[in-house]
């Protein structure tokens, strides 16, 4: 079942189109990585999804309902947006108590969530003494207060040390494995590659691709890029050698999962001239960069 649905979402700030006709869906019980370079419109999208920013056009719903029309939103959706969401002079536990009171939750949840994020001993401290990582954890604690079935996080790994990032990954994974939904944004694919099921990739406010991480990895398989005047013929030749190939244009193709040696020998055997040949490494991150920059460049 679809949990989060974004449809034709557009946000214009003056002359700048921050989000441009964006549509995607997030499945229940999955971790979905919301990826794109800085300035791609991720934060604006999430803020529109949470009713903080009014869309110029389009809609964003959670379980079919816009956030600001949910009854008891805190019990349905938890969000971690940025690390400076706290009054510096307020104690961490007091920050959570205020949210509990506002949302009508039992104040006993404060101790529970502090414990859950590993801040059990820091509840009585004022937030101004917190490290960035502790603030991120406190933000997550606030999001967990209502035991929501949907968790939305904007760049949660910022400021976390490697151990904290590991912890967060495991946490989000187990949260989704319990049948709940996690949407987590990042500008680094690697950050979500280990824990995400699906990815939604945006650049310059537009959707680049939405797919499962597995499919994305398939598309980023190693191969050999070849420039030849006989691309179509070469593909047939490679097929005869059990090498799959994708035509990129009339004079270029990519031989999937092959080495330069195998492609070169096959081409020589069939007498196909090759002008240029490059091995493409397996690198999801590079593929991601490619995807986001080519989409950016086409506008």
């Amino acid at each position, binding site marked *: 079942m679809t949990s989060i649905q974004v449809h034709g979402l557009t946000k214009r700030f003056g002359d700048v189109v921050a989000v441009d006709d964006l549509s995607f869906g997030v499945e229940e019980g999955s971790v979905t990585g919301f990826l794109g370079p800085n300035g791609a419109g991720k934060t604006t999208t999430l803020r529109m999804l949470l*009713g903080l920013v009014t869309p110029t056009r389009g809609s964003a719903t959670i379980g079919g309902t816009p956030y600001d029309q949910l009854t008891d939103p805190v019990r349905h959706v938890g969000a971690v947006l940025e690390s*400076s969401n706290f*009054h510096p002079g307020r104690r961490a536990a007091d920050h959570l108590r205020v*949210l509990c*009171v506002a949302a009508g939750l039992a104040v006993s949840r404060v101790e529970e969530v502090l414990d859950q994020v590993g801040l059990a001993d820091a509840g009585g401290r004022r937030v101004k003494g917190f490290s960035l990582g502790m603030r991120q954890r406190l933000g997550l604690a606030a999001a967990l207060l209502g035991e929501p079935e949907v968790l939305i996080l904007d760049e949660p790994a910022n400021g976390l040390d490697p151990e904290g990032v590991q912890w967060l990954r495991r946490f989000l994974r187990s949260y989704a494995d319990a049948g709940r939904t996690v949407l987590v944004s990042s500008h680094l694919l690697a950050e979500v590659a280990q824990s995400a099921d699906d990815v939604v990739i945006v650049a310059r406010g537009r959707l680049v691709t939405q797919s499962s991480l597995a499919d994305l990895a398939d598309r980023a398989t190693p191969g050999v890029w070849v420039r030849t005047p006989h691309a179509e013929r070469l593909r047939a030749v490679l097929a005869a050698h059990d090498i799959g190939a994708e035509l990129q244009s009339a004079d270029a193709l990519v031989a999937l999962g092959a080495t330069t040696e195998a492609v070169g020998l096959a081409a020589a055997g069939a007498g196909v001239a090759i002008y240029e040949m490059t091995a493409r490494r397996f690198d999801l991150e590079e593929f991601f960069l490619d995807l986001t920059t080519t989409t950016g460049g086409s506008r």
Partner: protein
Amino acid sequence: MRNAVRAEVLKLRTTRMFYGNALAALAFVPISVTFAIQTAGTDGAGAALDTGEGVRNVLSAASSGTLLVLLIGIMMMAGEFRHNTATSTFLASPDRRRVVGAKLIASSIVGVALAFAASALTLAIAVPWLASKDVAVDLLSADVGLVILGAVAATALYALVGVGVGSLIRNQTAAVAGALVWALVVEGIVVGFLPEVGRWLPGGAVAALTSSITPEGGLLPMWGAALLFATYGLAFAAAGTRFVVRRDVA
């Protein structure tokens, strides 16, 4: 709505800013009482102590909390934007009208409480002091009642103005500085030198309401001032609410 108001009160109680402002308001009381008693009957400072007006001048220290409640109101709203807590506030209660409404109610509760505290402190200092100067103050007299009523109304309504200003001016420092300059400098000059204009300003209404100054030419009668200042309070509150509801929280 009850939860939202309780949350706003709890927000205030969990920062030092609030206690600092409340204490500062109360610290003004003895200063103001002392000043009024020492200067009573002298040139330009108004009526002698043994007149009703003189007693009202002394007791007007009960409204010492007005300016600080204005600041508290400003910080309740502008502070949400300054510290980015507006995000978590609006996530917990997406109905922003309700959030601003809760702030208006919570701030006026604080205003009323502070006005009563300042009134009690004023009476505790002024009554014995006046008695030592052979001026008896009847606690049940209309003079005392009106001064305290005026202080409560002015302080509570100033809180509404504060929340409204804090909603309209997102930058807390600018909002606080602007409000102080307006209330202390601009209105002080206009009410003092152009009373026919000044009595229609918020500050002129408050002055009439709290009988703190009585320039030549006269202010509005107390009921008129109360009505006028209530209109200001509600206008600021309504404009602020409208602005906050429409604004993107980025």
